[in-house]
């Protein structure tokens, strides 16, 4: 079962720069929640605070709470490492480990906890994850080739396979399909649909059709002006968001739809 | 017209009077020498003294080592070479190509006693000497005697209470004239205890080697029970050995070193005109003589292609071997003065340098 996330009064800073202001959002378990909004409004920034990945950027810090199934991720006794194990992430740009084979890339996360998994378990897991990312047929004959030998689209699918292979509770995706072709995108969207039976999914996308297609809820972020902090403008279930938004900005943004 | 050179310490500081030996016309120009490291401190003093009367002479001495000094001299790049050993026949032959006429010759300019230094708790730090004869010393340096309270040592030092500390021999690790002069004493005086060929390299693997006199001294200082050999001027507060000459044990001093040279003959195997090569008489029984000494030579040509160089060489040697020059060296390097028995020989050779 996936877990729910509640974000309360979250402010996010890069050093002194307040990048995102007062975010309050309830992300339902076993649903897909999409973040949309113009470039620079802080979608990626908010997403990264959900598994404390922003902490890797020197100076970045958060005020407020992020509750994962009621437990604040930012409590003193919480280990960011275990947060990130439960909350997986797929990035905008494909980032396979360059020295590893395709197979090793998929297994990288699992190996952290299980040094010695049997060859057959490993084989099964690799196949399962790669099929899920619609990559199996393309790479099954060259699992031992390096991961970076693949084309961009293939690489991104490999990264998705790698993320789901550790079977997290929540999966965060930052524009996972922006480097994918339609067929791969379709496969990934199907995978997302399938995964939500077990996990909670949060996805940043520029593609509103994609949001409309796969998300149960949609959060629209906005930005008053450049240099101003971004904020959560409007949050609603996807049907409402796209058919009958109760927010003028959101309506304006969505009606300019074309992608 | 001389421009005050950058950063020079005004050279005319030697308190020596200017009336002596030097010629009426002062020498000027750039002159270079290279060779033995042992002479370095003395040469510094000589350069300062020489420039006192010849302020326009710029002299540089590069203490590269005797071998390199001679090699450089034989290419004609230097006016003179300093060397801890006399020229070989081969070198003499080669020098014909460099000198305008005749062949190079060597004269002794620097005599320095070589001390046996040691560091032993309760002895050296109490300012005491030990007495050694040639055979015992040779055995120590050959690793045959390994503790300080060995009867061979104890017997010669009845008034000292020697500990059982193991002896650590410290010797030069580089090729060195000091080494060759040192072991030639053993070879002459304790041939049974010292069977190695004469060489500038330390011949055995006893104890520890260290680079240069400075390396030997600092190594000896670093541990209890060490013994080594070094130029007298570098001894500092380390203990030194008194060496058995005849029936007495003579302590090291500059004058004691001079005495053995006084009691030595010229080496008649050294072929070539004008050469003054000393065959050190290690077997001397002269009263108060200290037999382990190093004799270092200056090597020059009897005639140079450039007369300026010849004038310089002549003036330089004249000054260096003069009483004044020897006194300067004694002050600066603690060396022993050239004995009067040699000076006439030396002046005759210097006179042979053609300046016309």
């Amino acid at each position, binding site marked *: 079962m996936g877990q729910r996330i509640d974000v309360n009064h979250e402010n996010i800073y890069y050093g002194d720069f307040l990048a995102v202001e007062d975010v309050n959002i309830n992300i339902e378990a076993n649903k897909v929640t999409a973040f949309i909004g113009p470039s620079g409004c802080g979608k990626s920034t908010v997403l990264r605070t959900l*598994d404390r*990945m922003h902490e*890797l950027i*020197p100076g970045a810090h958060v005020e407020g709470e992020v509750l994962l199934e009621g437990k604040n991720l930012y409590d003193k006794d919480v280990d960011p*490492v*275990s947060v*990130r*194990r*439960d909350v*997986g*992430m797929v*990035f905008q*740009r494909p*980032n*396979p*480990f*360059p*020295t*590893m084979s395709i197979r090793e890339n998929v297994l*990288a*996360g699992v190996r*952290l906890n299980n040094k010695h998994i049997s060859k057959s378990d490993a084989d099964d897991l690799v196949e399962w994850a790669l099929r899920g990312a619609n990559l199996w047929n393309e790479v099954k004959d060259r699992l031992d080739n390096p991961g970076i030998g693949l084309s961009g689209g293939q690489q991104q699918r490999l*990264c998705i396979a*790698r*993320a789901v292979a*550790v079977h997290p509770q929540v999966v965060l995706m930052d524009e996972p399909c922006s480097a994918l072709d339609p067929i791969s995108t379709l496969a990934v969207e199907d995978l997302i649909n399938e995964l939500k039976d077990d996990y909670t999914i949060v996805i940043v996308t520029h593609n509103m059709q994609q949001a409309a297609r796969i998300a149960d809820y949609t959060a629209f972020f906005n930005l008053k002006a450049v240099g101003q902090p971004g904020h959560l403008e409007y949050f609603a279930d996807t049907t409402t968001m796209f058919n009958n938004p109760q927010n003028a900005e959101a309506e304006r943004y969505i009606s300019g739809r074309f992608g | 017209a001389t421009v005050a050179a950058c950063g020079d310490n005004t050279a005319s500081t030697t308190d020596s009077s200017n009336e002596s030996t030097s010629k009426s016309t002062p020498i000027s120009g750039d002159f270079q020498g290279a060779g033995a*490291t042992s002479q370095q401190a003395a040469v510094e003093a000589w350069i300062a003294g020489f420039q006192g009367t010849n302020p326009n002479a710029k002299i540089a001495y590069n203490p*590269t*080592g*005797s*071998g*390199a000094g001679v*090699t450089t001299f034989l290419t004609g790049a230097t006016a003179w070479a300093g060397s801890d050993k006399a020229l070989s026949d081969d070198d003499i032959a080669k020098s014909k190509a460099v000198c305008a006429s005749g062949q190079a010759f060597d004269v002794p300019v620097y005599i320095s006693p070589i001390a046996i230094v040691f560091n032993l708790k309760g002895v050296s730090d109490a300012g005491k000497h030990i007495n050694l004869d040639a055979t015992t010393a040779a055995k120590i340096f050959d690793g045959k005697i390994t503790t300080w309270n060995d009867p061979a040592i104890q017997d010669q030092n009845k008034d000292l209470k020697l500990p059982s500390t193991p002896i*650590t021999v410290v010797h030069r*690790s*580089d*090729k*060195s*004239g000091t080494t060759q002069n040192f072991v030639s004493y053993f070879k002459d005086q304790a041939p049974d205890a010292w069977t*190695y*060929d004469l*060489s*500038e*390299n*330390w*011949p*055995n*693997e*006893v*104890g*520890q*080697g*260290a*680079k240069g006199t400075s*390396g030997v001294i*600092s*190594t000896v200082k*670093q*541990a209890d029970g*060490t013994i080594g050999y070094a130029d007298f001027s570098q001894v500092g507060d380390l203990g030194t050995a008194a060496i058995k000459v005849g029936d007495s044990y003579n302590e090291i001093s500059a004058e004691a070193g001079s005495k053995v040279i006084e009691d030595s003959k010229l080496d008649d195997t050294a072929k070539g005109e004008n050469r003054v090569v000393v065959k050190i008489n290690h077997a001397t029984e002269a009263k108060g003589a200290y037999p382990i000494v190093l004799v270092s030579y200056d090597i020059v040509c009897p005639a140079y292609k450039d007369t300026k160089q010849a004038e310089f060489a002549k003036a330089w040697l004249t000054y260096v071997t003069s009483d004044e020059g020897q006194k300067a060296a004694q002050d600066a390097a603690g060396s022993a003065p050239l004995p009067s028995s040699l000076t006439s020989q030396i002046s005759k050779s210097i006179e042979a340098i053609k300046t016309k």
Partner: protein
Amino acid sequence: MSSQDKTALAPSGGKTADKVFRGVAYACGILILVVLAAVFLFLFFRAWPLIGGDQKANSDVISSFTGGKVSNFWGYVLPLLFGTVLISILALIIAFFVSIGIALFISHYAPKKVATGLSYVIDLLAAIPSVIYGLWGGLILVPAIYPFWNWVANHLGWFPLFAGPAANPQRTVATVAVVLAVMVLPIITSMSRDIFLQTPTLQQEAAYGLGATKWEMIKLAVIPFGRSGIVSASMLALGRALGETMAVLMILSPSVTGYSIKILQASQSNAIASNIAAQYPEANDLGVSVLIGTGLILFLITFIVNFVARKITEKAGA
């Protein structure tokens, strides 16, 4: 917008500059070959009397170097070579792990300000001349390290490398290796630090995103990325250790000849470079040829070491 009236594929300016630049770059590449060939030929030319000269004179000279123990070239140079390699490898082993540790400390552990300060200190230390390390090693470290090596000799003496009794003063291979390790440490550290800092953020995030701890992230992303850099830094360091002259000269009590791995005893080993420095000033012409012959051997050994290292790097890269 202004109208475009340039012709298609018009020859562009700067073509000559392009060619000249390219030519200069190629020339500089080839110059490396030329210089190296020149060095090699010179060494060979100067060492030639060893092969083509009077063999009797050769063995006389070598005998004079060794007090009559050895009179042929190989008998002279091979123990030297053994000592050189022994010292350098020990130094590299000591320095390697420590350096990687410091590099990681700077790149991934220390707060940014501390890290900047530290890198600065490390860069500075890389520049401390070997003669100063020689002074420090010979005068400060040798007496200071004796109790430690003595302890090692007493407690680990069963291990051949540490066979006692530990020499006092400790002018031994072990002490020299420590000094050389200190000397090469900044080289490895600063090069690997630079590489570690270049690890793509994306790779690091990928590892963290999978729930890796910091150390696991380093193993997954930083080390693989930096591997070839680490190897080449180590090679640079090994090269420096193999060729180090002054520090070894000023600290080590050398042997005349012979092989030994007793690193805590004095007069057991000698190194080629410092031996050249010790013998050169007093050597005659033929003696210099012998010494240059040993230099040629050192040259060849660095060639082999680097060649092997290259192959390792290439394999890792593939």
